[in-house]
């Protein structure tokens, strides 16, 4: 008989692994991917494939030649970063921009901090925000969903941008003293552009690849909860904060502020709350901390959307709260025995 193995207790493990969690998240992203393919056609597949491949290649090169480690590209984290980055891009984006985004996401967002587990900010969001600031035109040209049917992409704006622009023009018209020609209140604006709640639910609107179909994202959320990959705290805290905050604003002035449902189902809120804010590495460790983190994201998102100059604020809100996470971890200790 060979020598016995010795180690300290415990001697059993529940069989969980980094890979199981990472690939679990990827499985949860499949419904949203299918929706994006249905809405945006081949472009969705191409953008996602380029983004994932670029992330994997950059991670491999950096680990192998810069950090001189054993590359661990198949642990799933680089694939998730790739998919999430792609899901945050419009389908018409030039592919070389996608590759630059992947380089920034992996190189700056993740590897410069020491790789998986050490990064402060969500890598996919670092890439996305970099692209948004560097290539604002390409990043905000949103083809409306056409499916596989047509090749000529018709570009339009996202519902958030439509509302923001319309409200802004109201303001300028009012200031110049001209009589308002176009629609006045939020509901009129939405009606004028034919945007309805069911449309928003299943994603029949302009936007990034993965953010359009709220239902698909919610299915992914349910799957991750079932597999115990994430806990419900962060997404629920974000949803609740957004509903309450926009609800109050809407009740105060329905003309000026869109209702909670509009805010919940448009833009990257669903994608961000379910898949980006819940990133293990950059979110707090305790349930209390998760609540604070989620509420912070919700408040910041609404503030940026309603009062800021960008139509969408999810990415910025998550990045800001990522930066605050170490502080939250310091303040929020788990419940003592």
């Amino acid at each position, binding site marked *: 008989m060979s020598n016995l*193995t010795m180690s300290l207790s415990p*001697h059993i493990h529940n069989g969980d692994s980094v890979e199981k969690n990472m690939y679990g998240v990827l499985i949860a992203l499949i419904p949203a991917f299918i929706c994006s393919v249905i809405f945006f056609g081949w472009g969705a597949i191409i953008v996602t494939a380029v983004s994932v491949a670029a992330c994997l290649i950059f991670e491999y090169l950096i680990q192998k030649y810069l950090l001189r480690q054993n590359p661990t590209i198949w642990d799933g984290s680089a694939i998730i970063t790739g998919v999430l980055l792609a899901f945050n891009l419009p389908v018409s984006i030039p592919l070389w921009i996608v590759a630059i985004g992947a380089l920034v996401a992996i190189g700056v967002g993740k590897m410069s901090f020491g790789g998986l587990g050490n990064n402060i900010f969500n890598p996919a969001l670092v890439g996305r925000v970099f692209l948004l600031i560097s290539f604002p035109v390409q990043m905000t040209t949103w083809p409306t969903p056409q499916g596989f049917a047509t090749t000529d992409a018709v570009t339009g704006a996202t519902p958030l941008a439509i509302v923001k622009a319309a409200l802004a023009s109201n303001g300028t018209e009012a200031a110049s003293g001209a009589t308002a020609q176009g629609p006045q209140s939020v509901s009129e604006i939405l009606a004028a552009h034919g945007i309805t709640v069911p449309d928003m639910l299943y994603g029949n609107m302009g936007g990034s690849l993965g953010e359009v179909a709220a239902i698909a994202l919610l299915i992914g959320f349910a799957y991750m909860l079932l597999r115990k990959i994430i806990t419900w705290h962060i997404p629920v805290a974000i949803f609740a904060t957004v509903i309450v905050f926009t609800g109050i604003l809407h009740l105060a002035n329905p003309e000026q502020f869109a209702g909670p449902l509009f805010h919940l189902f448009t833009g990257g809120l669903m994608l961000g709350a379910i898949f980006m804010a819940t990133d293990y590495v950059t979110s707090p460790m305790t349930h209390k901390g998760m609540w604070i983190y989620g509420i912070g994201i919700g408040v910041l998102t609404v503030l940026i959307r309603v009062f800021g100059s960008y139509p969408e604020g999810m990415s910025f809100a998550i990045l800001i709260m990522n930066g605050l996470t170490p502080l939250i971890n310091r303040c929020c200790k788990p419940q*003592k025995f």
Partner: protein
Amino acid sequence: MIKKPLKYNTVLKTFKIGGVHPPENKLSAQAPISVLPLPEQVIIPLSQHIGAPAIPTVKKGDRVKAGQLIGQAAGFISANIHSSVSGTVVGIDSVTDASGYARPSVIIKVEGDEWEDTVLEKAEAKKPGDYSKEEIIKAIAAAGIVGMGGATFPTQVKLSPPPGNKAETLIVNGVECEPYLTADHRLMLEHGEELMTGVQLIMRALDVRRAVVGIENNKRDAIELLTRLAAQIPGVEVCPLKVRYPQGGEKQLIKAVTGKSVPSGGLPIAVGAVVQNVGTVYAVYEAVMKHKPLVERVVTVTGKAVKNPGNYLCRIGTPISKLIEAAGGMPEDTGKVISGGPMMGKAVMSTEIAVTKGTSGVLLMRENESRRPAYRNCIRCAKCVSACPMGLEPFRLMLLSEQGLTETLEQERVMDCIECGSCSFTCPAHRPLLDLIRLGKNRTGQMIRARKAKNQ
């Protein structure tokens, strides 16, 4: 097999924070306790308990009988050691025990099976009420009884609360939350009446009116039996508990049964509770009613590759190789032998290690189960934080231990860690959390003791 769970499983009591649910694997739950034949030789370590090792009272060449005192307790926190067999002392020597180091032990060659005259075959015809508090505690101390759940703290010390503290409730630990182990389960099923007598004896020793037997809901037959028996005894009740590890931990069990939290750094007596394992209770019964010292115990021999997983009544000092033989021999691909359960048991490097008072089981793990995979970076998933039953942050404690920051470790309450292993069990990156936390805990303990010594 176990009957269907109680229908109110979801509302069963349990502790409040943390905890995990490892696969139960109670392979030997249906195997009745069988008596292991006497070995040719026993090795009885003089330190089978927490505290000072016993001082040997025999020398090489002496003839001893089973039940005879061979080691005298040395000091307040210590326990008597008795010969578990009759025969000749062949030496008092350092022999490697489950601690992994050689420690003084009495080696006895077995000849016949002759017992000390004072040990009774049948229990005295007295009732628990006929014994005085002092008589019971004296009998327990004389019999060298220690906590048999694994902690091996001398029982007479636990039954004499420090002045100013008053026990209110006796909690009997029949939880057996460790996977695989079934020794306590079988003991409850086969010796229910003796256990109830033991419970009454300890209640008398502690002068308490209430006793609660906590049993996890995966032992339905034991719950039913003991509930029936307890119905006839005033003040004794059975509390079925939701299956959850580490419910057998003292603080967790008190929380589950009474809802009270033992304060950080405090003893259970601070909330009026005293916890005793069912094995200990049975030993108390034998010590008082039969004058029989603690020289044998029930050990579970189990493992996925073991031919006949079972429960054996064996003498203290029996090499575990004898137990393995009785259970069908060592499987070919055994990679690890564990004394105790898989969550808190200790790996041993040889099967010649002797059974001691705290050995609750022998678990044989297959080669493929025994190696740990390489560990990775912490991905900060917080699963260890959710699993920790003491509300600690294991990922942080591990890092602090690695860096040797004992002062910060103390602030982070590392001394509260009960070393249950839930953190390492859940970690998806397979990080050796508990390995390092234990190291940090040891060093912090040393620092605290050094500080106390300096201040005195």
